[in-house]
């Protein structure tokens, strides 16, 4: 029994390593936009099967959190907000105008889309773009839950404790954040 538990712990441990694995310098999962990319349901001559690229970043917590950072740094947040949308469409649902497969989102980021989505080709390196794809998919709940990023402190209803003023002892001023 003890041995079984030990083996189980080891196996779970290795799974956790994979989930957190950090690959700083690598070729991104795929480098181009596939010819078979489908944008909608209507296609002349019958519908071709889209070859889906399985992005390994979808299951990697570190890649998703890096994507989240880039999402804010590159100002995706300016239009799409933290998934809720604003000037741009929301990303929290999984029904998207130009498809929700990883390669669709990658193509949308790289090529831009009408009515406001700029093209980031040449501006966002491929690896970071795929990390953003993984983060955006995690917003929509399309990635495994155990890899998703935590919600930001300031998105919670209650303020984080470090940022709330504290009452001092009787008659004395408290700490101001």
């Amino acid at each position, binding site marked *: 029994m003890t041995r079984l538990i030990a083996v189980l712990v080891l196996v779970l441990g290795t799974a956790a390593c994979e989930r957190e694995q950090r690959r700083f*310098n690598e070729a991104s999962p795929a480098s181009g936009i596939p010819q078979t990319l489908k944008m909608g349901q209507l296609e002349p001559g019958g519908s071709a099967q889209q070859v889906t690229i399985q992005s390994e970043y979808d299951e990697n917590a570190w890649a998703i959190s890096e994507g989240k*950072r880039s999402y804010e*740094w*590159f100002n995706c947040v300016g239009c799409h907000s933290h998934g809720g949308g604003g000037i741009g469409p929301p990303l929290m649902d999984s029904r998207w105008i130009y498809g929700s497969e990883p390669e669709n989102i990658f193509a949308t980021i790289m090529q831009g889309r009408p009515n406001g989505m700029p093209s980031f080709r*040449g501006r966002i390196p491929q*690896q*970071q773009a795929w990390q953003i794809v993984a983060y955006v998919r995690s917003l929509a709940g399309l990635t495994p839950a155990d890899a998703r990023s935590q919600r930001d402190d300031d998105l919670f209803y209650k303020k984080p404790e*470090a940022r709330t003023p504290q009452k001092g002892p009787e008659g004395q001023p408290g700490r101001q*954040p």
Partner: protein
Amino acid sequence: MNWPQTMLGAAGPHARGVESLWWLFFWVTTAVYVLVLIAAVLATVRRNRPVDPQDPAASRRAGVAIASATGVSLVLLFILLISSVRTGRYSIQGLADPSHINIKVTAQQWWWNVEYESTIASQRVRTANEIHIPVGRPVLLKLQSTDVIHSLWVPNLAGKKDLIPGQEAAFWIQADREGVYRGQCAEFCGHQHAHMALLVIAEDSGKYAMWLESQRRPAADPPDEMAKRGRDVFLSAPCVMCHSIRGTGAGGRTAPDLTHLASRLTLAAGTIPNTPGHLAGWITDAQGIKPGTRMPTIGINGEDLQALLKYLQTLK
């Protein structure tokens, strides 16, 4: 790359307090150590001398010896405790002076953003990993962190101060003699914590004023065709997403300001010296030099790289 980073070469009032405290501890503990060793040796040498346990004079002598040793230890420990608390209180005290300088230092993984504040927008200066200060004038550092807890430590000038996200910490430093003093992040903050250094450059007030004046200017226009091409490369590559160069369209705020990159001594927060060769290595393979850094690997061809280097060299 060999700048002093030692608390035993104090160059400022706070550091001097820490240094004299260190020497006090050193001499007291050394004296205690030597005395204890001498006593131990004496006891070993004299161990065969017969002592009568029934002799009241002998037991009184032992009692006096133990009591006086305890008394001396207590007094010494209290001296150390009191001087330590005094130094601690002094080193967090302000150096109130109406002529002090305000500098905002924001730590992030893994570099230091340095902003010279001014009420006039055009007088503000933003640089990275280097703090220039005039000799003999107190400087108020306003410390902030954007991600995790960092700690600023320039041992030659002052003690440590933690930078905690969501809070602003005030910290005073002052240099009493000219020099370049190395500082280091002193709170583990991730992969490249060890490569998160900064330099404090203390110079006389004339030099400092000249430096500040040159930093206030926007980047000069590229002097030749190649540098002009380099600027175009910069503005059309991923560089522009994070870095800013005042005077061009590049306005990213999340990475070091490069307006006067060529005037700095180091690259990547004190990791490598600022030479054209190291700069080329940094642009093509930042992840190889500093794995995990936020600077991504970008594909850039040789000609573009040469032009970009040429341009960045002109940003004096």
